[in-house]
C-alpha cells in the first residue's frame, strides 16, 4: 500500500534531519505499528504519508503511484486520528459527527450510514447527545476515533489513540481497531505503549533519530533469531561490581543496582561467569529468568541513547 524509499526531511532552520533515508513498506491490510522515542520522526513520517508536508528527498508511493500525484485520492481513502482531541468540545457527539461527515460531500442517506457505522464501531450509542466536553477521557478518545472512521478509510493512521485513558476504554479501543483491521482496513498505529503494539499489530517498525532501525513482523521480532533475554536478579546492590569482574563485553548490562540483563542464545556460560564473579560475597541470586523478549525490551535495546 505504502512504499517509502530513501525518504529524508529537514525542517526549516533545523540542523538535524527529522527523517534520514527512511525505507519502509506498509502492506495493504496490515496492522502496522510505528514505534519510536519522542522526536524520533514518527509524526513527520505520518505527516508525509498523509500529504500534509513534503519530503526533502526520497519517494513515497501509494498503491504504486507517487503520493503527491494522487493526493486527492489519498485524502479520500486515508484518515488520521490525531493524538489531540480534534473535535469541538462544546458540541455534542452527534453534532460533531454530523459536522465532520457533512464535509465529505455525501448524499444524506450515506452520511447517516457513515455515522451509524462510526457510532457502532466505537460504542457511542448512549452518549450521542452529551456535550463532548463532558465526556470521560475514554469516551473522548472514542469520539476522536469515530470521527476518523466517518470517511470509511482504506488506511487509518492512529497517533497514540489510547493516551491517558483507563484500561477498560483502552481495551475497547484496541478491540475496535483489531476488528476494523479484520474487516480489511489498513491500520498505521503509533503508540508508546509497547504491550498494545505487541498485542494488536502484525508488523512493526521502530524509528529512531530519523532512521528505521528495524522493520519486521511482530512475530519474527519477538520469536525470530536465537537471542532471548537472560535476567539475573541479585539479592544485594552489587550488579555493577559483579559486572566489573566479568570478562570484557560479557553480553550483560546492569539495568539497576540489583539486576543484570542481556540477550544471548547461550545463557549457561553467562550464568557460570556471574556465579564466579559473586564468589566471596554474601550476595546470592534471587531470581533468574530466560526466554522470549518483550517488544519493550527490543525497543529499549534498539533506541538506547547515551544522553
Amino acid at each position, binding site marked *: 500500500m505504502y512504499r517509502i524509499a530513501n525518504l529524508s526531511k529537514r525542517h526549516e532552520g533545523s540542523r538535524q534531519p527529522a527523517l534520514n533515508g527512511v525505507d519502509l513498506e506498509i502492506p495493504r491490510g496490515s496492522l502496522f505499528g510505528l514505534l519510536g522515542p519522542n522526536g524520533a520522526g514518527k509524526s513527520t513520517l505520518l505527516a508525509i504519508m498523509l500529504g*500534509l508536508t513534503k519530503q526533502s528527498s526520497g519517494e513515497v508511493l501509494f498503491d504504486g503511484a507517487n503520493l503527491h500525484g494522487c493526493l486527492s485520492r489519498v485524502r479520500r481513502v486515508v484518515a488520521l486520528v*490525531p493524538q489531540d482531541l480534534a473535535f469541538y468540545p462544546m458540541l455534542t457527539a452527534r453534532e460533531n459527527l454530523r459536522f465532520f461527515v457533512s464535509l465529505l460531500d455525501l448524499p444524506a442517506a450515506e452520511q447517516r450510514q457513515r455515522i451509524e457505522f462510526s457510532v457502532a464501531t466505537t460504542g457511542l450509542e448512549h452518549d450521542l447527545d452529551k456535550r463532548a466536553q463532558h465526556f470521560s477521557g475514554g469516551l473522548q478518545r472514542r469520539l476522536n476515533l469515530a470521527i476518523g472512521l466517518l470517511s470509511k478509510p482504506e488506511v487509518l493512521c492512529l497517533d497514540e489513540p489510547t493516551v491517558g485513558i483507563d484500561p477498560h476504554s483502552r481495551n475497547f479501543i484496541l478491540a475496535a481497531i483489531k476488528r476494523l483491521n479484520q474487516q480489511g482496513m489498513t491500520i498505521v498505529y503509533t503508540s508508546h505503549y509497547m504491550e498494545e503494539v505487541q498485542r494488536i499489530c502484525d508488523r512493526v517498525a521502530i524509528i529512531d533519530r530519523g532512521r528505521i532501525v528495524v522493520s519486521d513482523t511482530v512475530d519474527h521480532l519477538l520469536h525470530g533469531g536465537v537471542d532471548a533475554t537472560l535476567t539475573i536478579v541479585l539479592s544485594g546492590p552489587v550488579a555493577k561490581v559483579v559486572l566489573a569482574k566479568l570478562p570484557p563485553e560479557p553480553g550483560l548490562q546492569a539495568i539497576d543496582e540489583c539486576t543484570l540483563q542481556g540477550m544471548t542464545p547461550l545463557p549457561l556460560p553467562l550464568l557460570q561467569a556471574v556465579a564466579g564473579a559473586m564468589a566471596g560475597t554474601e550476595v546470592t541470586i534471587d531470581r533468574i529468568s530466560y526466554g522470549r523478549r518483550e517488544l519493550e525490551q527490543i525497543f529499549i535495546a534498539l533506541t538506547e541513547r547515551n544522553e
Partner: protein
Amino acid sequence: MTKLVALLKKEFLVVSKDIHGLLVLFLMPAAFILIMSLATQDVFGTAKSSPIKYAVLDQYQQTLSIALIQKLRDIKGFEAVVMPGDATVVALRESLQRGDYQFALHIPADFAARLAANDEAGKPTTASVELFIAPAQKPYVQQLFSSALQSFLSLAKLTLALNATGKNPLPANPAELEALGRVHVAESYVYGSRSENKAPTSVQQNVPAWLVFSMFFVVIPLSTAFLAEKQHGTLQRLRLMGVGTGPLLLGKLLPYYVINQAQMMVMLVVGRFAVPLLGGDQLNMVDSWLGLLIISSACSFAAIGFALLIATLVKTTMQATTVGGVTNIIFGALGGVMVPKFVMPDFMQRITDVSPMAWGLEGFLDVFLRQGDWQTVLPEAGWLLLFGALSLTAATLFYRRLQ
C-alpha cells in the same frame, strides 16, 4: 515560608519566560499613554493648542459682516475658515456632514435687513446669522463656542447701551456697534438635509462609538477559538478532509458577521427601550436603514478580517487575548472612540485617518447623528472593505505558511 519563596521564584520564572506576554504588558501602557497624551494635549492645554476650525460663509460681504468676522477671529481656541463668497448654504451644510468642520456660521445676503428688523432692546424678531452645528461634536465644545460668540455679542450690546448713555469709556465705531448689538444667532443642528434646534442626546452620541468598538472585539472570541482548533489538531483534521484555506476562513466570516449584526441590534434595542426605562434619552432611529446596513456590514467585514489575521499570527491564548485586546484599544484611541477626533492636534487627526475604527465611527456617525443617506457612508465603507480584504488576504497567506 520556604513554600512561599519557592512559589514566588516559580512565578517570576514562568512570567519571565513569556516574552510576548511581557512585551504586551509593557508596550500596551506605553502605547496607550503615548496615544492618549498626544490626542488630548490640546484639551488639557499643555502644548501649543490646535484651534478647532469652523466655517464661515459670508454672503453679505459688506463692512459690517467683515467686521463681525474680524471680531469672531478673536475667539480663542477656534479658527474661522472663510468660505468663498460664491459658496452656497448647501455646500456649507455638506462640509459639516463630511465632518470637515464642527460649526458653520452663515451670514446671509440680507444681513443688514435682518439686523434692521431687530430692535435695539435686544429683542430679536429675526435671526441675523445662522450657526449650524455638526451633531457629532461634543456638547462642551459647542457650549464653549456658543458662549464665546454670545459673550462677544453681549459685549457689543453693552457697549451700545453705554454709548446711548454717553458713558462708554471704550472707543468704538458707534454704527458698527449698533449693528452688532442687534445680531441674533439662530443655532441649529444639521441632521441630513434638515436642521433642528434639538441637540443630539447622549445615547445618540454614545451608540456609534461603542458599537464600532464592540464590533472589533470579535477578535478575542474568534482568535481564541481558532487557536483552540489549531492546537487540538482540528484544523489539521479539516485539512485532511479536503477543507481548503479559503472555505475555512470564509466559514468564520458569516457566523461572526451575524454576531456583529446581533450586537448592533442589541445596542439599538437597549438605546431605544432600556435607556428610557432608566430615565435616559431615547435613541432616535436612523433615516437610512440601508446606510446602516452598508456601514455595519463593512465594519463587520473589517473587524472579522482583522480578527482572522490576529488568529493566524498568535501562538497562545494569552497572546490572542492580549494582542487582540490591546490592538483594539489602540485602534479605539486612535480612531476617536475615546477622544473625539476634532479635539486632537492636527498630526494626530491625520493618524486617525488610517484607523479602521475611525472609518467605522465616521460611518455610524453619518447614519446615527448626521442622518445621512446610504451614499454618505460609501467612502468609509469602502475603506473598511479594503482593510478587511487586505487583512483576510494576509491571514490566508500566514495560515498557508503555517501549514
